[in-house]
């Protein structure tokens, strides 16, 4: 019991500080945090599937975009919280649906497939708007206040972090990690890989959908090019791999880091920001292939091993 209280103190304090932000921070800080939480939630939910199973999902934009289109179609007929839940349900259900045929496919085929699916959904929505609604893009009116958006994104992020953490430390998470290690061996050991993959794929997609719904009401103007922007996929993938995909801390770190860089450079030097983003990705893949958190852990373990070995050596071979 005391351990639980001790473990929860720091996160609770951080959470309280973050929850109090709308009361004293300026509108600028708030909007910056909004973007940070959007990416944090997306990167953590990306990790729930891709980080744990090793299946690289380049279809983030599809699930995010579906969430935004839930808002486009149903705002303001449904209240804000119901809409967020519905966004998650729609995206999660879509993931379940496409997961059946798609998750049999491994490696590069799967990566291409998710990228292709995302673009397919985008072009279908685009065709739908042109052919059926005869207009591209929708403006959403009377959207919720910035504070309401802030708290909902904070809530989604916290929920994603908790889910990611609980999964990581459960039998389910162990099963997912074994898929990453060696899928055939995992299956032979009795892990129901299809069920595991499908479930985590849908969970991760559901969170992306929730984020999309909130962001649609934040941006107020939504068209397929904005909602299904592959840049969202790219940034989320980069943030997660930059931080390290072993647990929820890496993606949070990556999201915070890249949001800050993009804030400093993004507005005036969009192209420079993206060039830096690309360079960061290449450098990370070349020098820190397991991300910042993974490298830190390896360094720590390395030190501990050296210390242990020295102790062992002295005990065994006293001079």
């Amino acid at each position: 019991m005391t351990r639980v209280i001790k473990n929860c103190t720091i996160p609770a304090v951080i959470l309280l500080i973050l929850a109090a932000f709308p009361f004293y921070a300026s509108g600028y800080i708030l909007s910056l945090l909004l973007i940070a939480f959007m990416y944090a939630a997306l990167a953590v939910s990306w990790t729930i599937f891709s980080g744990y199973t090793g299946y690289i999902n380049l279809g983030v934009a599809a699930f995010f975009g579906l969430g935004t289109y839930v808002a486009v179609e149903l705002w303001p007929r449904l209240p804000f919280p119901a809409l967020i839940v519905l966004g998650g349900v729609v995206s999660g259900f879509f993931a379940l649906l496409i997961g059946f045929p798609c998750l049999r496919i491994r490696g590069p085929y799967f990566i291409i497939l998710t990228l292709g699916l995302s673009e397919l959904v985008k072009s279908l929505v685009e065709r739908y708007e042109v052919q059926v609604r005869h207009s591209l893009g929708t403006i959403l009116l009377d959207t919720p206040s910035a504070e309401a958006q802030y708290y909902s994104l904070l809530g989604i992020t916290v929920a994603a972090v908790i889910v990611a953490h609980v999964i990581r430390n459960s039998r389910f998470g162990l099963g997912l990690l074994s898929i990453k290690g060696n899928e055939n061996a995992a299956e032979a050991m009795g892990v129901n890989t299809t069920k595991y993959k499908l479930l985590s794929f849908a969970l991760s997609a559901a969170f992306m959908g929730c984020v999309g719904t909130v962001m649609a009401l934040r941006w107020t103007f939504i068209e397929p090019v904005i909602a299904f922007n592959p840049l969202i996929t790219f940034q989320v993938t980069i943030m997660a791999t930059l931080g390290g995909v072993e647990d929820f801390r890496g993606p949070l770190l990556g999201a915070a880091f890249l949001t800050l860089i993009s804030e400093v450079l993004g507005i005036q030097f969009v192209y420079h920001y993206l060039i830096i983003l690309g360079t960061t990705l290449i450098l990370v893949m070349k020098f820190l292939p397991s991300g910042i958190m993974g490298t830190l852990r390896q360094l720590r373990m390395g030190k501990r091993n050296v210390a242990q070995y020295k102790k062992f050596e002295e005990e065994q071979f006293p001079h």
Partner: protein
Amino acid sequence: MELIFRILVIGLSIGAIYALIAVGLNLLWGTLRMLNIAHGDLIMIGAYIAFLLFKSWGISPIISSLLAAVACGVLGLVIYRVLFSSSIRAAKTLEGLEANSLLIFFGLLIIIENMALLVFSADIKGYSYLTNSINILGTPLPFNRITAALVAIGACIAFYIFLQKTLFGKAVRAVIQDKDATQLVGVNTHKLYVFCFGVAFGMAGLAGALISMLYSISPFMGQSYTVLALVVIILGGLGNILGSLIGGLLLGLITTAGITLTSPGYAFTIQYLLLVLIIIFMPAGILGRRMQ
């Protein structure tokens, strides 16, 4: 009947360029197990080289297509040297490199595209060259399309013959089949990888220069060609060079038929749908078996 001829003529002329794009991408996949998703951006570089040479000095795109091929090929060698050569030497198996190299190419894609935006601006550009047309089977076809298609298919066939007839080509095919066995019989695979990088990037540059004769160009053009190439190599089978050649022509025909029957706005929808359906239902492609 006239409609069928039109689809055939236009489809094959476009398909030839699709084939050229896909063969380059597939060569890298087959030999190095690397998926170059920046392939389309090299096409963009090739297109801008041809465009700038034509606009500033009036150099014919047919000549500058060779220059573009050489320039992109050299770029490929540099990229291989800087980014990949050490990790390929260090890696025990190429499979481990797969995901990493994909993300590295991803980074390259972002860098190249945004550098192009900085240098060339986001404006859509184009020029006209050899636009008078002749009738083929009742379909008017501009000379620039005929030239581009002939150069593209010529390059593909030349490369295919090179693979079939020369010793070096045999080594390339051997690496595609089994890397370890190839090394066992004494082939220097590293040298081969360098060569493949150069050729694959060079083909992208050549294709770009040819495309600039036909369509308008912009820094964003790359992505759609990458997807096209992906559809083609999935259609023909990953690692299967002949499959890419046939797949390219086939995709040209399918796209043209689809557009003719619906509307030009559906081109992407058709291609993406084809990509998704083929991966799910025929992952081995129309010919050849699935790569392990």
